[in-house]
């Protein structure tokens, strides 16, 4: 495989993955609000060109009707297709929760393995654009808590391409969360990026003093903090978790054991957030081997606010990561 890279952003990477998957497999379908070219190829253009290339039977714009979108995706998936259903924003999954939780996630188990629901849900979210409390939430913990659906939150364009290619061919339902900035920041991406397995974390940077784990657009904030920590003499190992459920315990435990310290950072609320599960698992497994308790940073217990000043305070910022990493690094 060529190692040649090209600058592309997440939006282009997802578009390339969908193009490639649809080209290679006639069973791959795409549906959702405004996704066909007639409607502009998606609210931010992720699906642009697909309906023109593959026709409006395989690439179908839908009414604003999330239960109908998910129901159609579930039925088609059970009939042997591989639908990629867009629920425009993660907050809108709330109106399709019955379809996602009671049906997509559970039908394999409840049918004793007779029903397969190989679908992908694409959804966008993230604070930072002053869209306030109903357009920006990270609700991955809800889906992680539901047995039978995989939860993926990529950061880099290469990961978007590779994880989408895997998710579309996965035999089980997968929800992929596209977080604001991750769609628009160009990064070096292998021209021939192939599938990347689900459930595998990526050790982005090696380090010795502390492990910092994050995912999605929060990775940008973490990377900024890590640079400043290095200047302060603290060597952080950075893990991009990529798949939140089922999560890569092996990689995380190995890293936490090596550095003796773990800090989990996510945009989702800290209260009952994914960090709680990760911290509990790491402490259960590595009790006595850690130099500090596992640290957690997440959003405060309130809705995403509108005012820029409040939104900045709501989001975990580099100084908070630096302060928490320094506090943990000073222990043990």
């Amino acid at each position: 495989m060529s190692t040649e890279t090209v600058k592309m952003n997440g939006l282009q990477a997802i578009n390339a993955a969908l193009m490639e998957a649809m080209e290679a497999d006639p069973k791959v379908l795409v549906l959702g609000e405004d996704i066909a070219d007639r409607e502009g190829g998606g609210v931010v253009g992720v699906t642009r060109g697909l309906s023109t290339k593959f026709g409006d039977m395989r690439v179908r714009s839908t009414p604003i009707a999330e239960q109908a979108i998910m129901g159609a995706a579930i039925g088609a998936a059970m009939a042997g297709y591989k639908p990629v259903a867009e629920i425009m924003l993660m907050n809108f999954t709330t109106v399709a929760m019955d379809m996602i939780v009671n049906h997509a996630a559970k039908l394999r188990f409840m049918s004793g393995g007779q029903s397969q629901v190989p679908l992908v849900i694409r959804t966008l979210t993230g604070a930072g654009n002053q869209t306030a409390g109903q357009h920006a939430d990270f609700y991955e913990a809800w889906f992680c808590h539901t047995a039978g659906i995989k939860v993926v939150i990529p950061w880099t364009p290469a990961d978007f391409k590779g994880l989408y290619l895997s998710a579309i061919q996965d035999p089980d339902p997968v929800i992929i969360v596209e977080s604001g900035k991750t769609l628009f920041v160009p990064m070096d991406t292998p021209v021939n990026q192939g599938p990347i397995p689900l459930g595998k974390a990526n050790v982005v940077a090696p380090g010795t003093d502390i492990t910092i784990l994050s995912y999605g657009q929060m990775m940008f904030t973490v990377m900024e903090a890590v640079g400043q920590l290095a200047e302060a003499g603290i060597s952080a190992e950075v893990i991009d978790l990529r798949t939140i459920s089922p999560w890569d315990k092996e990689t995380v435990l190995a890293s936490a054991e090596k550095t003796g310290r773990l800090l989990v950072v996510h945009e989702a609320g800290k209260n009952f957030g994914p960090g709680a599960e990760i911290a509990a698992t790491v402490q259960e497994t590595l009790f006595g081997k850690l130099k500090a308790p596992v640290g957690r940073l997440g959003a405060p217990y309130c809705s995403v606010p509108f005012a820029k000043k409040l939104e900045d305070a709501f989001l975990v910022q580099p100084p908070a990561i630096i302060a928490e990493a320094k506090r943990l690094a000073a222990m043990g």
Partner: protein
Amino acid sequence: MTDTLTNRAVPDAATQLDIYRRMIRIERNDDATRTQIRRGRITAPYYSARGQECIPSAISVLLNDDDKICTIYRGIHDMVAKDMPLRPLWAEICGRVDGTCKGKGGPMHLTHPETGVMVTTGIVGSSMPIANGFAWAALLDGTKQVTVAYFGDGASNIGAFHEALNLASVWKLPVIFVCQNNGFAEHTRYENGTSVDQISKRAIGYGMPGYTVDGNDPLDVYAHAHAAIERARSGEGPTLLECKTFRFMGHVFGDADGYMTKEEKAEAMADDPLPKFRQKLIDSGVATADQIDEMTAKAEAEVNDAIEFAMSCEYPSDDELRRDVFAEEIPA
């Protein structure tokens, strides 16, 4: 307001007898289920469809094995009408590993793809959005397959009904929406929860034909189902059939029926579709009383065989908790 059928298909003698065969198989199966629960041989939530046998029976004679149904928790009559084999059905009701779903779904959630029983949902209204997906797949496959979505009158008041009928109409999907209107949504009387006197009138809002049918008259159900199925197979789109009926055994087994008068129940039971159709078959010379009794005895023997088979099957092993969550088994 509601549509009237102009060209009424009439089932021939053999088809009429086949409708009765399905009805008596349902009735014998229902009677045995209630007996087994009363005797304490099985513990299961059971929603009897006694009184509603005619609807799926007159529809199923028009369906092929590869035509699909999506039904609900009060749906065992729909499955038996579709000729689901009774041994795996009973093993599932009894929670055994030889059940259609390995004992993981139970009587509210049977699945049997071989006979087209694709989804049985315990969530009111959720059969409809998923039926659309099977119908979309049939269009993509270029087959003439149709999907029947069964639901109750209560489900016509839930959002999923609206979303599903609208999408099915916009996409011209080969779905037949069959409302089995038994007059009660759980314990709530029809008129206390539904804004129109006939559910079929709601079809106007979705641009599809809607018929109110005598759900206790096999010939009326057959004629309307015939028109709806022909319309779906020829690519013209969905139909809403409201089949008016009554449930004789209340909402759930053990229900005290306190929300209806003794008189109205007695009146409804006097219109029991089974003895009425039996007499009609004899009077019109389609069958003799002996032939019908033989058919009844055969159904009863099949049910008894299935019960004894089910009782002899093993319970699922605890390992089943790790299977069918995903395609890949979860490690112990």
